[in-house]
């Protein structure tokens, strides 16, 4: 990590910091650059899906495929932008917006019953049947005042998750 920071100038660091709305300190950005270079083994300037999947901890995560779609082929600036959603300095709103984007794969601005079912399936796998999953989701939706056919928008998500004490933070190891 020591020799990679020499390729990153002060201007670059500030530009990246600006891009991620100051959610990371300059030290953290330097540390992330070291990590980015470590992940980007063929030196292409971006980390490919293959390189992400070579991290076993990432590969066994049930949501890895969805994240891969978002994180594949990002250059360093976008990489930091992606991770800025996990910074302790990021607002709750930003995090909920990120979660919304994970659900809303088609980028329609709406999360449908099927979207939610897909994520449930990723997380629970074969341990409950499809029918049970649908039942649970329908019941829970109705409980919260929605129906099976309603699609949720960002403001709904804000309302639902806003008070749940959401914590989504990752600490960047700084040498």
């Amino acid at each position, binding site marked *: 990590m*020591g020799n990679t920071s020499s390729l990153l100038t002060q201007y670059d660091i500030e530009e990246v910091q600006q891009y991620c709305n100051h959610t990371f300190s300059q030290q953290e950005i330097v540390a*992330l650059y070291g*990590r980015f270079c*470590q*992940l980007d083994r063929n030196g292409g300037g971006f980390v490919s899906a293959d390189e*992400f*999947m*070579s*991290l*076993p*901890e*990432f*590969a*066994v*995560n*049930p*949501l*890895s495929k969805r*994240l891969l779609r978002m*994180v594949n082929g990002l250059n360093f600036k976008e990489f930091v932008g992606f*991770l800025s*959603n*996990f910074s302790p300095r990021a607002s709750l709103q930003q*995090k909920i917006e990120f*979660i919304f984007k*994970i*659900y809303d794969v088609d980028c329609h601005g709406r999360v449908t019953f099927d979207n*939610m079912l897909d*994520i*449930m399936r990723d*997380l*629970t*796998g*074969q*341990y*409950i049947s499809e029918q*049970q*999953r649908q*039942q*649970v*989701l329908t*019941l*829970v*939706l109705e*409980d*919260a005042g*929605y129906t099976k056919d309603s699609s949720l928008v960002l403001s709904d998500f804000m309302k*639902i*998750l806003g*008070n*749940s*004490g*959401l*914590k*989504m*933070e*990752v*600490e*960047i*190891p700084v040498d």
Partner: protein
Amino acid sequence: MGCVNGALNCNNVSNNSSSRSRVETVSPAKNKSSRISHNLSLSSILTNNNPVQQPSSTSKMNTRDLKSSSELDLDRPNPEDYLPTGSIPEPHPKLRLSDLLDISLALTEAAGAIVDDSFTRCFKSNPPEPWNWNVYLFPLWCCGVVIRYGILFPVRVLVLTIGWIIFLSCYIPVHFLLKGNEKLRKKLERCLVELICSFFVASWTGVVKYHGPRPSRRPHQVFVANHTSMIDFIILEQMTAFAVIMQKHPGWVGLLQSTILESVGCIWFNRTESKDREIVAKKLRAHVQGADNNPLLIFPEGTCVNNHYTVMFKKGAFELGCTVCPIAIKYNKIFVDAFWNSRKQSFSMHLLQLMTSWAVVCDVWYLEPQTLRPGETPIEFAERVRDIIAARAGLKKVPWDGYLKYSRPSPKFTERK
């Protein structure tokens, strides 16, 4: 579940008893995924002492979790509890939409893995910090380089060449002429192999300190050690002629393997062939039965690790029904980093690096022989021995299979998460 991510507390393992009991009963066809599943059940056993729980107590625990911070297992709430099946006696708070939608835990884990993962850390080679940045330090360093490359290196090459000449001139006659007299031939070959290894160690100015009782030649015992580089084998072989099990390498190393090392009884395997495992297991078993064979040395990690961590041990060595004698090896990085990063350099380059540095300093501890305790599975046994070796050599343990360097984790592992 791998619980090494510093951001999460190890004790918050999924307490879905239904999933865990299914882990115990599912027996995948592939040996590798069974190993991973064993490792998984092992880490769950290590972190949580109640592997199988009654469903009712799980739902109780689950509800407690639902009430407490969302850092716990909320992305896997147990929907079975919520279904109106009528079989769950206890009442519990309702599953809310926020709980169902909150996938922050899985996302945090994934992002944590992107930022820093324990597996990559195992194979990171940390070169010693350069110290030659100063006006007076730089010329000193230059002198050092001149001495190392100009004087030490040729001397070492000379020493090594002399060693090889002596070795070959004794070995070839012994090998061919004493074909009748097996016992004497084996004894002489053993001594000669020990000799050439000493020459090797001298050629890098190896300063090796051995602690503990020297290995004895008894049947039904197996030696296991942590693995940092191929030179581990040479360092150990210098003291006692072991029969080692190694990956077949190409090039001049392979040549050495097939000729000289064959005589000490070494066994080869090929990582890429899956059927190979049974054949090798049979060979191992046959070897330990033979009283006259050299003691068997196995590196259960299966791959070179950077001497700060240990990866999961493969259970093969621990299933042979023998006493296992652990050996811990720790290199001192003061002059050179002995970790062979097989992705970055070939073995020849690695040797060259060693021969042009001041010295290779390491400690070898021969530890107390261990046997399988009653009621202990081979995997638990392997973990126990790994604990002993890691404690002695000051290494950190990591719950990943070393072979993940070459392939992806099986999807079954993801399913279990």
